[in-house]
């Protein structure tokens, strides 16, 4: 009779209890896995930001435009490697409730500033030549079933077309992918010139500038230079790193995110406490038996290992099953959530953390009973047990 068999027998003596305990752990880790993945997807914009990329927006707010002249002025500054500009189009395809991320950009410089955007050279040339052309992210193209050469009407909830209406016709010239799996390709870009010629108002304004510096160490210097150059003009600027900009934007969604995660983690730990309590009690019930094992000549360290092994095993069975279920859940929800949360991937760090919590649960619940078993005096145990 080896130890593993004994552990197995001990665990399954009350199958119902074992099932309920594992189930509670399962639920706890299901929620943990799903919610942490959700959170990391929300934060992923920050992690993916390039070190040397800066955003230049109007000091008043990033929704207030800047004059196009700034594009040339910034391009001429020292330390600036590439610069491009973009306008938010407020686009949607057929259904106004389903917003699309559509931007009017300066095509060539845009591709230089965002090396993450990978396009087939032939498609790239076609797009650069075609003023009505649209470059669509792979994810978006898949979502709507668009192919190269398709003519699609995209509407704006901000701008009007000078021919009337709010709809522009575009031709899909290229479909881009990201250089990593995490890069969000759920957006599309088109020529600023086409936008400028066909809109009824908005003039020669751009939404914001994006630039790369020669080196990340120059970031601060370049940002300061830009803001100083335009200080006291009608359009003052606010330059920040892409990272800081995304972070600020995510924080706009606000403390409600923080509150939710706080609540969920509290719940996660409470369930663990509740379950841990049950597991610890289950071992305490067996004081008499442990005394018998000791009488039979089982060494104390061996019993210690067996008791600890049992709780670790329970924690891992329930926890890993829960994590697996969370993974399935996320894979299932991926398609539906792709528009809001592009980077819904359960990363290795999340799994590692979860396994860490499982081990902790097993240790904390098993350690005290195991110690008690280790130090158990056979005579007192038999007296107390009353068996």
């Amino acid at each position, binding site marked *: 009779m080896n130890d593993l068999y004994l552990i197995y027998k001990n665990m399954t003596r009350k199958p119902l209890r074992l099932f309920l305990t594992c189930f509670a752990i399962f639920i706890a880790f299901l929620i943990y896995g799903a919610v942490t993945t959700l959170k990391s997807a929300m934060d992923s914009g920050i992690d993916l930001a390039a070190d040397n990329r800066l955003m230049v927006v109007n000091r008043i707010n990033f929704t207030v435009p800047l004059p196009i002249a700034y594009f040339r002025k910034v391009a001429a500054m020292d330390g600036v490697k590439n610069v491009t500009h973009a306008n938010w189009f407020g686009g949607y395809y057929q259904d106004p409730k389903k917003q699309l991320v559509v931007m009017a950009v300066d095509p060539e410089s845009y591709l230089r500033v965002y090396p993450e955007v990978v396009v087939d050279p032939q498609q790239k040339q076609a797009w650069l030549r075609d003023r009505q052309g649209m470059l669509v992210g792979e994810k978006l193209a898949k979502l709507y079933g668009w192919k190269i050469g398709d003519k699609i009407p995209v509407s704006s*909830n901000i701008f009007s077309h000078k021919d009337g209406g709010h709809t522009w016709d575009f031709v899909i010239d290229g479909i881009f992918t990201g250089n990593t799996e995490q890069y969000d390709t759920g957006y599309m870009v088109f020529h600023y010139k086409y936008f400028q010629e066909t809109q009824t108002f908005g003039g020669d304004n751009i939404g914001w500038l994006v630039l790369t510096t020669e080196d990340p160490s120059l970031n601060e210097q370049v940002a300061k230079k830009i803001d100083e150059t335009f200080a006291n003009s*009608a359009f003052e600027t606010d330059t920040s790193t892409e990272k800081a900009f995304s972070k*600020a934007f995510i924080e706009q969604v606000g*403390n409600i995110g923080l*509150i939710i995660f706080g609540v969920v983690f509290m719940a996660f730990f409470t369930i663990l406490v509740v379950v841990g*309590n049950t597991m610890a009690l289950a071992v305490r019930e067996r004081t008499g038996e442990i005394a018998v094992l000791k009488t039979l000549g089982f060494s104390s360290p061996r019993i210690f290992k067996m008791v600890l092994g049992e709780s670790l095993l329970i924690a891992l069975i329930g926890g890993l099953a829960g994590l697996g279920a969370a993974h399935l859940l996320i894979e299932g929800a991926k398609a539906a959530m792709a528009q809001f949360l592009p980077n819904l991937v359960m990363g290795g760090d999340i799994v590692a953390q979860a396994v860490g919590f499982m081990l902790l649960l097993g240790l904390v619940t098993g350690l005290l009973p195991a110690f008690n078993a280790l130090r158990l005096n056979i005579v007192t145990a038999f007296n107390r047990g009353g068996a």
Partner: protein
Amino acid sequence: MGSLISQIATVTVMNIRSLPRRLWMSLAMVLASAVVVAILLAFLAMAKGFETTMSSAGSDRVAMLMREGAAAELNSVVTRDQVNLVEDLPGIASDKDGPVVSPELYVIVDGIKKSTGTEANIPLRGLDSRGMALRGNVQLTRGRSFTPGTNELIVGEGVLREFDGFDVGSEVRFGKNTWRVVGAFSTGGNVFESELWADAKVIQSHYNRGSSFQTIRVQLQKPGDLQPLQQGIDADPRLNLDVQTEKAYFTSQGKQLQYMAIFGRVISFIMALGALAGALNTMYTSVADRAREIATLRALGFSNFSAFCGTIAEALVLAIAGGLLGSAAAFLFFDGLNASTLGGSFTQVVFRFEMSPELFVQGAMLALVIGFVSGFFPAWRAARLPVIVAFRQTT
């Protein structure tokens, strides 16, 4: 019949008085039920608070006109000429100064959020005294209103709560313009309190808007009756405007955090399953613990049913205790909690978590369900276990 009730009462009291003996298991069950209830309430209170903030802003008496296709105030543009044309349309209420029409501007400025210390979007609304009169419930809580034609603004109470640097008397800088905060206003807790208000003409000139506006609000002759106004707009091709009541506009915007309520329900349902497993464990242990006791009672002539009820009652008491604890905790931590998030117009909406009585009812129901289910199966076992077997079993 009377004896059955007294039997049940006796068993129930006995069970409850023996709870301290199973202190840890009982506490675990209370805790499990408390957590589930607290989570459900937290999510519902958030969604409820946001919805109240949005929907109470909209009035049936006011119609909102935006450029067609503009889903939010921020995206709309309306020219001065269009405003003049709208003033002559039928269906608009008049007072001594003529038709009650308020052309408004809506621009976004940055403020520093107290909670994170980072910049966040605040709407700066340009309007005039007519616009303020149109919103029936505006109250100046501090200072005075802005003087038309000057760089003065008044600040909503919500902005004061969530953002730094807008105290009455202070100066704020947006771009190269400096504004003086001369007063604070309340609109009864709705979304307008998340805004800054200033003179529309001043904003037009500072933000290069020429003579254009963004939205037009008009007071309707008959609340909710858009018919005459709509007909007037349809008849004039120069008016490419969408018209809706302000109430309809804000109700649709208030639906935005509905997903929170759904998310909350899903999470608390899954959590409830986990808690149920914990609670069932507790009750099975409790029944096993008292197997002899129950057998003794039944041997003495107590009915199976009374043993059954006694166990259910025990589970219910524990779950309700947990429910109360959870509700109290949720109320303490979340009721009135200030929060802010991005609203439909890309700006911060400041709102408060709202724990309304019907939410407590939902929490109580959830606790009762947990109590009942976790009591039922163990109680069934306790009542069914043959007396002989129970006596033979050693604990």
